[in-house]
């Protein structure tokens, strides 16, 4: 698949230990531009840890991670620069509660990208419109519903114009009626060709938007393939087991 497209992420033999706890056991993976890679697997499999190693919110214990060709584990790599190319959306939103929705979005472009106040404001409003929240620009996070907060969080990540976005269970903390509005925003991003890594168990979304599924269990990728292959004809018994539980 897509070997002619740019290689965005290359993971080579990634291991992660927490003290003696071996959480990631030698992962290898390549992600190309505009791929939407869904990661599923039981709780504790290491999905979050894997995502967080990719922008070094966790330090990898062993192995190599190349983001757009840059080895981020090398000591002379400026990790802050790499992180500006990677958007991250968390399960618990993590909006800044002392700032309005618009200020949340403007913060990084102004302070990291050194964008002018005016340009940041303009882009912030555009992004709020894109996620359907233009009238909430001056609302504080605690005045927004969970779904609205998560959409602001996505807009905040997009404000840095990242080359890829990671989603770590973006809808797990949401009430059922708010899940759709967030998934719609993600769907649109996928259609626009954004490179995405998504930990999610929203099978409907995965079937529709994902180009590839990775199944993680016990720190290993036990199965990999298109949604059709993995969801319809799971090969590994643990995948079958897991899918029967969540569908």
């Amino acid at each position: 698949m897509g070997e002619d497209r740019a290689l965005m992420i290359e993971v080579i033999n990634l291991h992660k230990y927490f003290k003696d706890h071996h959480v990631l056991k030698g992962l290898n993976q390549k992600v190309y531009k505009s791929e939407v890679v869904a990661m599923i697997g039981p709780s504790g499999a290491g999905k979050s840890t894997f995502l967080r190693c990719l922008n070094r919110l966790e330090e990898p214990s062993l192995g190599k991670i190349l983001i757009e060709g840059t080895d981020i584990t090398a000591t002379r790599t400026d990790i802050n620069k790499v992180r500006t190319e990677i958007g991250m959306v968390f399960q618990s939103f993590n909006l800044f509660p002392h700032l309005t929705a618009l200020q949340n979005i403007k913060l990084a472009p102004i302070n990291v990208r050194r964008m002018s106040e005016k340009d940041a404001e303009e882009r912030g409003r555009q992004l709020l419109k894109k996620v359907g929240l233009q009238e909430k620009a001056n609302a504080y996070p605690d005045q927004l519903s969970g779904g609205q907060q998560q959409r602001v969080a996505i807009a905040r990540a997009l404000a840095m114009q990242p080359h890829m976005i990671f989603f770590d269970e973006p809808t797990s903390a949401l009430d059922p009626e708010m899940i759709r509005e967030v998934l719609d925003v993600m769907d649109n991003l996928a259609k626009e060709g954004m490179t995405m890594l998504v930990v999610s168990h929203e099978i409907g979304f995965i079937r529709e938007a994902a180009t590839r599924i990775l199944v993680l269990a016990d720190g290993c990728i036990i199965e990999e393939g298109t949604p059709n292959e993995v969801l319809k004809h799971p090969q590994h018994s643990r995948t079958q087991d897991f899918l029967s539980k969540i569908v």
Partner: protein
Amino acid sequence: MMPEMVPSPPTGGNKTRPSWRERFGHVPWFRRYEFLGGLFLLLLALAFFLPPFGRPQSTLVWIEIAVYFLAVLFWVGIILSDIEKPNWMKAIAAVLIVLVFGWLFYQYSGARWDKLAHAFFNWEILSATGSYGSTTSAWIELLAGLWLTLQLAFFSIIFGTVLGLILAVLRNLHDPVLNFFLTIWVDFFRAIPIIVLMMLIYYAFPYLGITLSGVVSGVLTLTLNSSAYISEIFRAGIESIHYGQVEASRALGLTTMQTMRLVILPQAIRVVMPPLASNYVAMLKDTAICSVIAILELLKTAITLQSWLANPTPLVAATALYLLILIPMARFSSVLENRMKARGVSRALASKKG
């Protein structure tokens, strides 16, 4: 529209005021207004038969006074313990017992009130000029002392807060070597009594070739002492911010210092405002310790005037000045604290700006 004084019964229909018997029929005799009113008039009348001014000589008279006081206490107790009595009546009763006690004490304690007033509340001595070879009155001297006290507090608070904040931010870098020294700093200055530290800096440092003026020694001492406490306050505030805030900031590419300045501290400062304010109240009080190194702040001024005038009135006046400044400050810090408790931190913010 007429405000309805008595809520109509839930069955509705009957809008007439209930009769006296219906309203108060269930009240026991000793809580009735007839009884309490009669007792009040009786106590009022008996007051005229109390012994004359001065310390009573016989036990019998003491007993008479005690019985009278207990009777008033009984009357007040009935009113205060009755939930049906209106609040204004309870307030009057409470004030009355204080007044009666004060009045009895004034009459029969045998105190020489004229001498007491001359000693402790001698306002003439305070306002007279030239009584001790000075051209200004003691009042002016005290106000000058208060001004110096406020200056000492102001600079100690500013420097202490800045230093405390720096220590807290350094602590947050989680560098083991740095933390070791920070822990020593904080423990040392929290453990050493302020008065000892102040005397050490003022009287012992000159032997090391470091001579500091009184005011500088005072401010330095209070700054060092408060930096330890304030850094702990800031540290608690910083640690109270959810770690997800740091992760979100770092994922956006903010540096450690940007994360601290733009995300953590703005949230932490709102959390620490109440404890910080009560710390400032304590610091203003602690400036009184500067009197041991001959700084003419409010307390030292009062003590000096007391010995010059051979009269303790300046101390009483200084007390009044301290209270005048500190009670509003203490109240303000309580208000801050209650406001934080009543509304979530971010909610308080939202209503202020949004």
